[in-house]
């Protein structure tokens, strides 16, 4: 009986391929077939104000842009997150914390927002300024989609916001799918 058990244990333990290594010939250079379609490539489009230029952002960003103004350069990031991406209240309060401002309730936050509409959805623009340090401010747009949310955030000074606000709104209004 012990022999039978040993044989069975041996059979069961034979399947030990949890870590494997192998070589795969590189695929022919055809990025069209290798790269998965991305929202940037195929779906989301926007119009860029003339003075803005692309910049290198973090890996989580869909795109990053430098936004020049009279006293410096703002950093604009575009991110798309699944679902509500944590929600308006949590995100705005986290960003408020980054410029040394306390948290607000959702109704307080919404009271200071501007409702806009682009071809994707009705969305909100939030402008937040640290009145004690006017270099610390941001303007952002949160665009809810069916199963994800687009976050467009521009870190900039209070003075910068007054200068580029129209460009920012023009930029957010231009978000659309494909070439439509």
């Amino acid at each position: 009986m012990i022999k039978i058990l040993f044989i069975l244990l041996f059979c069961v333990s034979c399947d030990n391929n949890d870590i494997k290594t192998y070589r795969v010939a590189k695929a022919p250079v055809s990025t069209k077939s290798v790269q998965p379609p991305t929202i940037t490539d195929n779906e989301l489009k926007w119009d860029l104000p003339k003075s803005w230029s692309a910049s290198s952002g973090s890996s989580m960003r869909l795109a990053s842009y430098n936004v020049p103004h009279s006293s410096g350069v703002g950093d604009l990031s575009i991110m798309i997150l699944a679902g509500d991406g944590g929600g308006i209240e949590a995100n705005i309060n986290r960003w408020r914390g980054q410029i040394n401002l306390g948290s607000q309730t959702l109704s307080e936050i919404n009271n200071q927002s501007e409702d806009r509409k682009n071809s994707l959805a009705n969305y909100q623009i939030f402008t937040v300024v640290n009145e004690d340090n006017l270099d610390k401010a941001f303007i952002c747009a949160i665009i809810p989609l069916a199963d994800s949310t687009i976050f467009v955030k521009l870190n900039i000074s209070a003075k910068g916001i007054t200068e580029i606000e129209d460009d920012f709104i023009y930029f957010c209004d231009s978000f659309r799918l494909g070439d439509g």
Partner: protein
Amino acid sequence: MILYISVIHLGWVMGKDRLKKILNTLSSPKIFICTIFWMMVLVVLGTLAQKDLGLYEAQQRYFSCWIAWLGFIPTPGGRTALFVMTFNLMFFMLKPAFWSFKKIGIIITHTGVLLLLLGGGITAWFSTEGNMVIKEGEISNVIIDLFAKELVIIDDGNSEYDQITTISDNILKPGSKIESDLVPFDIEVIDYHINCEPIRRLDVAGPEYKGLAQNFILKRIPNEKETEVNRTGITFKVTGAEDVANGIYSMFLAQQIPQKISSNGKEYTLALRRERTHLPFSLKLDDFKKVMHPGTDVAKSYSSDVVLIDKDLSRPVLIRMNEPLRYMNYTFYQSSFNEGVDVDTSIFAVVKNYGRLFPYISSLTISLGILVHMFLRFPIIFNRRRGK
């Protein structure tokens, strides 16, 4: 054969009477009846559970397992029941009284049932299934598993090939440490979620968090009924890489931006993906055809013109619904398709099953056994009636 040798050996060691007693217990038909009854219970429970859990999860919890948990009560799973049933049958067939020419029909029938059970075991242990997705004009030799995942570490430094190290999700359990000569650094799994959602951090992450983990945490969410749509996620700690790369990483299935880690002067790409099997041959999709029922959007049939390429040899093959391609133990079924603007994509369900012939052979054997038994029994019954 092994069982027979073992039993003879045991009989020599233990004595004939004691062995007979043990064989009688192990071969008791009561065990067979109990396992049959328990399998019926499992079928009912599994079918009911399928409504909430989905097909795959119910199959795993009740049938493809050794222990089926009914709440907090451990009960024999489908594998245990079938294992017991197989051995019970084998021990039954070891009884000397079983082997008689008069019972040749019963012997053949029991052999057929045993073959059916063994075939099921081979299929359960050694079969694999997945999808091969090919666009028109492209070649593929990759099968993508529908359920199993793997953490891959890719060294793409060579201009001709990628060196790929895969870690199966069998060992990607929270707390497990992966220290292997095949892996260029050590990995300790912190969390592994079958289904998860990346949630933006509300706090500022410490410097030990790298990549996606800097800004996101992976939140476990309930598994989807359709297992294929789960977004699997993993959080793990890397040590033994370059100082700047050591830290905690998170990644999830189909993450568009792969994670890079530097170790020993090389840059590796890490990704969590569905398990892939590279075949020793390839298929090239020349054309995908779809025929619709007239005046409807319902597909009547679809087929793929492929070229089977094995080393220097190639031959054209037509794969149609219910007319699969069988090659080197793999079977390619026309499963689905995606229509594109310029090119279509054909999806083949690929199955590798060493036990695929067992159901046919065992069914024929069982049928033969019953026929032989009837042939031998009819004269006895006929004579008995005539005697009355």
